[in-house]
Each structure stands twice: as structure tokens, then as C-alpha cells.
């Protein structure tokens, strides 16, 4: 063995990880070219056993031996690349007034739709949207894999400001009982406590005067004033008296979910013996169009449903929170709440709260006088 090592040293064989196994054998790594030389120089002095081989030549041999596997791998890579050329999903955010379906139709018209090839760049999609929809102030388009994200910010229409030299009326922009009208210019046409509908004339810009000769003279002015009215808001809140609690029993089971297109195959429905459970899935892999397949590993946790009757305080707190959020959402900031009525009624397990809010707000808006 020692002679073998000295010989390897003298012949410049590149040996690594030399480990003495016993008196007569040792184990080492050797380069393939040195191995061939070693075998040719051996002359039956040593018994050489090839335990394993690694590296590029071995890998090449393995590839040649497993042609079908390599072909399959190439087909898989090609399919992966090919499906990356398609749009799998389009997600539009930020729409307020524009119709989402209309935008989807428009996008399909320019060749951007689910299942279509990615023919247009993000900049081209942007410019098409800007060109088609004049009410868009900003568009953000980005691809995340096969998913197309479109973020739209719509223009906010500024209220029409009528110049002071143009005659106009003040009309009601919503229903309400007139509380007080402060007329700065023009003629008031409705008394207090009268109910007015949207569009009703409140202060007119047509001022009639009797001139010095006793004739009626009509003058058109820009009506100015503040019209305060009591507006009524009605809301209904439903609150459950019983709270349902999901109690985890601690029992768990595992299964697989296979999603092909929109169809989900859940092994949990067959093999998991829990009556009620929650499922947490983690994605193993997902492919896109043309073969939309997704595999998930799912953890099923058994739960028991327990009911608890809410206390009076909890119900009141919850209703108050809901009322506050409704007021914040539906009543203008400049409106002053003058009255708030809450009517409670019980419908079995549900408490129904009818809320009537009376607010005082300025309901006047300017409107041009058309037939001058």
C-alpha cells in the first residue's frame, strides 16, 4: 500500500481523500485520466475496485443511458416555457365608475385576455387603455408570471364652477325639509319646513323688479346663498345574539388537493373522518394554461362549533361601532346630526336595529339658467 502511494506521488497521480481501510486496502478519489493510467500500469500488483464515479463524464454517460428521461425533461422545460407565453389571469384594481366587464371586452379586443398569448407589452396595453378611456388618470400594468395586473385610477370630476358673471339658480341636490335659507343674491322661492326633492328650485337667479316707469323688469343674476335642510337617513343593522365559536379539538389529519382547471379533488372529503374541520392548504406546484393543474398538501384540523350568548354590553358595543361606521361612510362631513333614533326589534336570534338619522346640511347647488 505504501509503495502504491509513493508510486502515485512519483507519477503525479492526483489522489484525494486517501483513507486506510485495513492493512491491505485503502480508499481514495482519483481523476478519470489518472485512473486509466493506473489501471494500465497495474500489472496485477493491486486489485482495483471502482466504488463510484462522479463528474461530467459520468453525467454524460448517464444522459446517454437515459435518453427517454432526458427527452421528457426537455419536453417538460419546453412546456414550462410555452405556458409562460400565455396570460393566465387578469386582475383589475381601482375601478370606481368604469365597468370591469367592458374593460375585459376591450382588452380581449386588442388581444389581451385569459388564455391569449402575451402579444402586447405593458406599455402598449397602457397606451391602448389611455386612448380608449378618457376618464382614466393613471394606469399601471405589470406581469407577475402569467398574471396580468392592471391598476386604474379614475379621474375625479370637479364640480362645475359657474363664473360669477353668468346667471344661475340654486337647486336642491338631494331631498330634505328646508331648515334655513341664507340668500346672498337672487330670490328665495321656498319657505321653511317645506319638503323639497332633488332638482327643485330653491333660490332663483331671475329677479323681477318694477322700474321707475312702473313696468316689470326682469334681471338675471348669479344666485348666491346657503340652503340648510333637514335630511333623513335610514339604515338597518342586523346583529346576532348568539356567537358561534370554532373550538379546535387538536386532532389533525393530512390529505391532498388536486385542482384541474376549476375542479377540485379533495381527498379529505373521503378519507378524513371529521364531521367539521378547517383546512389549510400549502401549494406544492401549479401549472398555467394550457394545462392548469395545481397540487396542494392540506392539513385538516377537527373543530367543534360552540355557541355563546352575547352579553347586553357586547351587543350594544357592536351596534354602536356599526352605527358610527355607517355615519362616517354615508353622511357628509359638513352635515350636522340633529337627531338620532334607534328602534330595536328581535327576530328570533337576530336583533334588528332601525336607525333614523336627521342631519342638517347644505343641499344647494348651482344650475345655469338655460332659457335666457
Amino acid at each position, binding site marked *: 500500500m505504501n509503495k502504491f502511494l509513493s508510486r502515485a*506521488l512519483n507519477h503525479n*497521480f*492526483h*489522489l484525494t481523500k486517501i483513507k*486506510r481501510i485495513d492493512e491491505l486496502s485503502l480508499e481514495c478519489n482519483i481523476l478519470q485520466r489518472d485512473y486509466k493510467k493506473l489501471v494500465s500500469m497495474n500489472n496485477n500488483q493491486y486489485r482495483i475496485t471502482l466504488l463510484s464515479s462522479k463528474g461530467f463524464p459520468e453525467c454524460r454517460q448517464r444522459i446517454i443511458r437515459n435518453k427517454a428521461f432526458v427527452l421528457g425533461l426537455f419536453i417538460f422545460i419546453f412546456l414550462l416555457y410555452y405556458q409562460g407565453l400565455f396570460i393566465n389571469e387578469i386582475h383589475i384594481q381601482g375601478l370606481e365608475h368604469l365597468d370591469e366587464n367592458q374593460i375585459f371586452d376591450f382588452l380581449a379586443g386588442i388581444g389581451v385576455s385569459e388564455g391569449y398569448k402575451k402579444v402586447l407589452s405593458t406599455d402598449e396595453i397602457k397606451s391602448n387603455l389611455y386612448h380608449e378611456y378618457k376618464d382614466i388618470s393613471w394606469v399601471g400594468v405589470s406581469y407577475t408570471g402569467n398574471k396580468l395586473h392592471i391598476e386604474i385610477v379614475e379621474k375625479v370630476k370637479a364640480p362645475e364652477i359657474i363664473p360669477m358673471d353668468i346667471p344661475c339658480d340654486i337647486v336642491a341636490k338631494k331631498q330634505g325639509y328646508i331648515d334655513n335659507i341664507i340668500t346672498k343674491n337672487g330670490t328665495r322661492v321656498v319657505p321653511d319646513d317645506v319638503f323639497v326633492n332633488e332638482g327643485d328650485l330653491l333660490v332663483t337667479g331671475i329677479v323681477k323688479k318694477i322700474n321707475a316707469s312702473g313696468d316689470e323688469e326682469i334681471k338675471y343674476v348669479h344666485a348666491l346663498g346657503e340652503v340648510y335642510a333637514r335630511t333623513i337617513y335610514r339604515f338597518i343593522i342586523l346583529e346576532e345574539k348568539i356567537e358561534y365559536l370554532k373550538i379546535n379539538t387538536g386532532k389533525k389529519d393530512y390529505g391532498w388537493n388536486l385542482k384541474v382547471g376549476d375542479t377540485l379533488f379533495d381527498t379529505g372529503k373521503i378519507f378524513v373522518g371529521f364531521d367539521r374541520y378547517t383546512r389549510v392548504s400549502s401549494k406544492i406546484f401549479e401549472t398555467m394554461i394550457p394545462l392548469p393543474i395545481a397540487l396542494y398538501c392540506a392539513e385538516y384540523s377537527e373543530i367543534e362549533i360552540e355557541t355563546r350568548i352575547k352579553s347586553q354590553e357586547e351587543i350594544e358595543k357592536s351596534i354602536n361601532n356599526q352605527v358610527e361606521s355607517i355615519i362616517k361612510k354615508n353622511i357628509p362631513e359638513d352635515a350636522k346630526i340633529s337627531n338620532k333614533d334607534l328602534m330595536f326589534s328581535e327576530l328570533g336570534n337576530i336583533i334588528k336595529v332601525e336607525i333614523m338619522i336627521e342631519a342638517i346640511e347644505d343641499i344647494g347647488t348651482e344650475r345655469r339658467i338655460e332659457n335666457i
Partner: protein
Amino acid sequence: MAIDSDLMFDFSLNIPRIIISGKYAIIDNVKSIQSFTNQGIVIDTGKQYTVVNGENFILKNLNDDRIFLTGKIDSVEFFYGNKKGD
């Protein structure tokens, strides 16, 4: 290190040169390996024999008159055998 001793260090071809650091030893000017076991290695460096004793020895690399030895190193001994030039 003075220049002459520095040159002596670099061009001393037939005397042992060992660098030991923890569990690793690099031995230069190796002419032949006289014995190698898990517990020791005897190296002929030309003018001397160098013996490294220890446990679990593995020769990590053997190339160009140099060996790279790993394992628990206990001692290093030098023997002047009956060699030419001694």
C-alpha cells in the same frame, strides 16, 4: 526572517517542511510514503524520515511532492536514516 534563511526555507528540497494548524498538516518535499495507517504516516523527504503520529488520519490530497493530511495530530518526529548525503 533574514533573506538567506528565507531562501533556505524556499529552496530546501530534501529536508522536511511541515505546516501544522490544528487538525491539518501540509508536508512538502515528499519523495515517498514509507507507511500510512490511520494512526501514523512515515514520509521520506530525501535526507530524513518524518513521522507524524495521531488518530483518524486521512490524506486529503496527494500531489506534486506535497501531502495534505487531516486528523488528530499528536506528535511529529524526525529520523536520520542511513541515507546518502547524511
